[in-house]
């Protein structure tokens, strides 16, 4: 029952999403996997920038200091600059943001776009953490667990006590009142159930589900006319519910209005004949008294778990601290804005003040130009670029051989880097989009292998354990990535 189910029948998966604990856990796992993979993506991109641009920053430092400092001293200083957020106990994303700002003046156009995406994510990171917190605390907030267990007849006395206590302390929350009404109804305490449902309807007068439950409670008290009125309200709010028409048909049967019962039954069958057939087969045992209760929709429970609460706030703050730390998540938009301002200021510094490496010949230069793809080009290469190929043999064979030599060196270097970390060679070799794709796949595969794709647990076990399969998938992706890095290195044609 609790082991891996092998290849899942499609029915399993469909049912998973009808069950709130499972759908919440699956959505939470997917969401947190994507978030973690994205954090890994930007962290690894930051590392790629360090590999790619450290020589640039060292060259500029050397020129600024104008002292004959050894490479060791300069590297130590650069290391210190890059690790500065560590001394403030900042999270990994502070490092990434810091690195992006430090390297901003050296970045190519495509890389700058990546940084802007990251800053946008920083801007909305508070909300991202909020949703993550919603999934992490989904079993402990807003008595959602108690509501679900009660509606599914799995509740223990302590769950009912929790519901009662919540209703007392939150008189404006209608959903627990509806659930409590169901409990009272099962106990045979119809009057109290009706009172609770009427109160719930005062709070949410457009909730058709509450009207349906009210009708069932009233029918339990043999107040059929009021039950019919309640159901008519439910149908007015949702004409396409098979349950409301079916229940109406049952109540008409109770009042011996067989004509209207048959009419309502026909309407229900028209909407979903299979489901009506299921109702009938289940109701055969006690056809006279069977009414259908509508359960709280999964979407509504997910919405409730995302509603702000003390627990959610704590968890989302903790999640944000895992990524950033140092400040509270309320400052996320401010951090994004400050980063934008810093970038605006940096953009106003003339580009010729910073070292650039020619993507064609590898020479470090200051003025230069850029290719149509936005890659750095020294003026010589830019000029050679404009020349017709017919004329190249006449001109500057030395420069062309310099370009060829650099291309070969770069090709071998990026191939080695790509094998060390898929995507690293591509980023260093100015193939940003391929690099980003590979790094994201690398991050995702690592997340899947390490976590098995599981972050949150289904409160009520579904009997499925897909972690081994997810880990296998992660290993498969990693294998494919390394095979691609080996067979199609960044310098190769077509990559």
């Amino acid at each position, binding site marked *: 029952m609790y082991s891996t189910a092998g290849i899942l029948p499609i029915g399993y998966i469909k049912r998973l999403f009808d069950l709130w604990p499972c759908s919440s856990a699956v959505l939470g796992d997917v969401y947190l996997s994507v978030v973690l993979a994205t954090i890994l993506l930007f962290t690894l991109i930051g590392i790629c920038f360090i590999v790619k641009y450290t020589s640039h920053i060292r060259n500029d430092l050397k020129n600024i200091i104008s002292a004959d400092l050894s490479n060791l001293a300069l590297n*130590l200083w650069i290391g210190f600059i890059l690790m500065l957020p560590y001394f*403030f106990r900042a*999270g990994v994303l502070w490092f990434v943001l810091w690195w992006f700002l430090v390297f901003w003046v050296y970045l190519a156009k495509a890389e700058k776009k990546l940084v802007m995406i990251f800053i946008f994510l920083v801007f909305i990171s508070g909300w991202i953490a909020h949703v993550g917190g919603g999934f992490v605390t989904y079993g402990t907030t807003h008595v959602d667990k108690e509501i679900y267990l009660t509606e599914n007849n799995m509740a223990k006395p302590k769950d009912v006590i929790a519901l009662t206590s919540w209703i007392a302390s939150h008189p404006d929350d209608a959903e627990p009142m509806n659930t409590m009404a169901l409990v009272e109804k099962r106990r045979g305490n119809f009057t109290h159930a009706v009172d609770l449902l009427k109160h719930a309807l005062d709070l949410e007068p457009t909730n058709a589900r509450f009207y349906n439950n009210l009708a069932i409670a009233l029918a339990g008290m043999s107040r059929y006319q009021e039950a019919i009125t309640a159901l008519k309200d439910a149908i007015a709010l949702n004409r396409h519910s098979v349950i409301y028409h079916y229940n109406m048909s049952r109540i008409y049967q109770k009042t011996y209005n067989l004509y209207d019962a048959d009419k309502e039954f026909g309407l229900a069958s028209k909407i979903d004949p299979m489901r009506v057939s299921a109702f009938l087969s289940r109701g055969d045992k006690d056809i006279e008294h*069977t*009414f259908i*209760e509508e359960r709280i929709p999964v979407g509504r429970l997910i919405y409730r778990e995302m509603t702000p609460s003390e627990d959610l706030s704590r968890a989302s703050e903790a999640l944000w601290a895992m990524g950033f730390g140092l400040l509270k998540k309320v400052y996320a938009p401010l951090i994004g804005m400050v980063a934008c301002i810093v970038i605006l200021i940096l953009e106003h510094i003339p580009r010729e003040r910073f070292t650039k490496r020619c993507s064609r010949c590898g020479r470090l230069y200051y003025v230069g130009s850029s290719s149509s793809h936005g890659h750095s080009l020294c003026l010589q290469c830019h000029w050679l670029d*404009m020349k017709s190929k017919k004329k190249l043999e006449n001109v*500057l064979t030395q420069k062309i051989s310099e370009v060829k030599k650099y291309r070969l060196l770069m090709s071998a270097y990026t191939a080695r880097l790509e094998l060390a970390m898929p995507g690293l060679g591509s980023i260093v070799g100015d193939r940003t989009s391929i690099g980003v794709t590979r790094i994201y796949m690398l991050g995702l595969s690592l997340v899947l292998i390490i976590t098995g794709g599981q972050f949150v*647990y289904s409160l009520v076990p579904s*009997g499925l354990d897909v972690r081994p399969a997810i880990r296998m998938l992660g290993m498969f992706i990693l294998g494919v990535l390394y095979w691609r890095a080996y067979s199609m290195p960044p310098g190769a044609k077509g990559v």
Partner: protein
Amino acid sequence: MSLVGTLKGFGVTEIFQLINQQMKTGTLVVNAPRAKISIFFSDGYIRGIYSDSWDADPRVKILVDGGFVKHKDLEVAKGGEKESLNWVDILIAQNKLSKALLDKITNVVLRDLFFDILRWGEGNYRFEEGVNASREMIECNAQAENIMLDTLRSIDEWPLVEQKVPPLDYYPVVIMPVTEGIVQKFKLTDKDIRIYDLIDGNKTIDTLINESLETRHDVLSSIVRLMDAFLIEVFPKETIKGSDRFSKMQTVFAGLKKVFAYILLLVTVVALVYISRPGLYVPLWPNPVVTQYIYAQKEIANNFKYSKQAIPLLHSDKDNYNH
């Protein structure tokens, strides 16, 4: 037929390329706010140059300031100019000027001119077929592409050099002999070594520019590179006499600077570690609050598991039945 364009977007390099490719004969007139420059081409080769910003032939200044020709001889030659014989021809005929030296100086003038044209952002150019050579035109014979390639490299490096250029009336002084190791470490070129060889402690930077037969930008780039390599240092005239003592002090100071860089780094790191000490070793992952919530979920799930209340996926029903 004439070709016109603006200097924005390297338009002038494209026109040079076009002239070279199509082996054109004509005059390229570059009109910028600072000057109007005419370059005369014949079969794609540069045959002459002229700038309206010149008061006199710019080669004269280089020849005289560099000490290649005496001012007196030049004046005599200029006095003997005729319709078909100019001062250059006279000096060459008198063996007071060699053709090779003149070509080299013309090349320097040409490269300086290219440097200006390629750096100008504003202005326009016009190419007209046919050569309307004036008497002031400086004759030359050069391939535009070679000149351009060297000039582009100078422009690439110039922003860095520009901010380090010492005053031109300062005296460069050798403070360390050049070795193969230094040449490799600082990637010094032959041109840099040639400039280094010219330095004797008695010449200003301006004199070096005049004597070197290199462009002003190339000489200044070399001097900056030599200074960065700690091979030379520059002093104002007043301090030149005490330069030996000063250069020793400079060497000591450079060594102290190196040590200071390490000490400063160490002190900064220690200070920051001290300030942020309490929380520095507390890991941010995993966060205990998040772990606590996840464990709570796990515990609830385990309770259901052990009480055999797992959700039967295949048998559960979507609806509740009220009996």
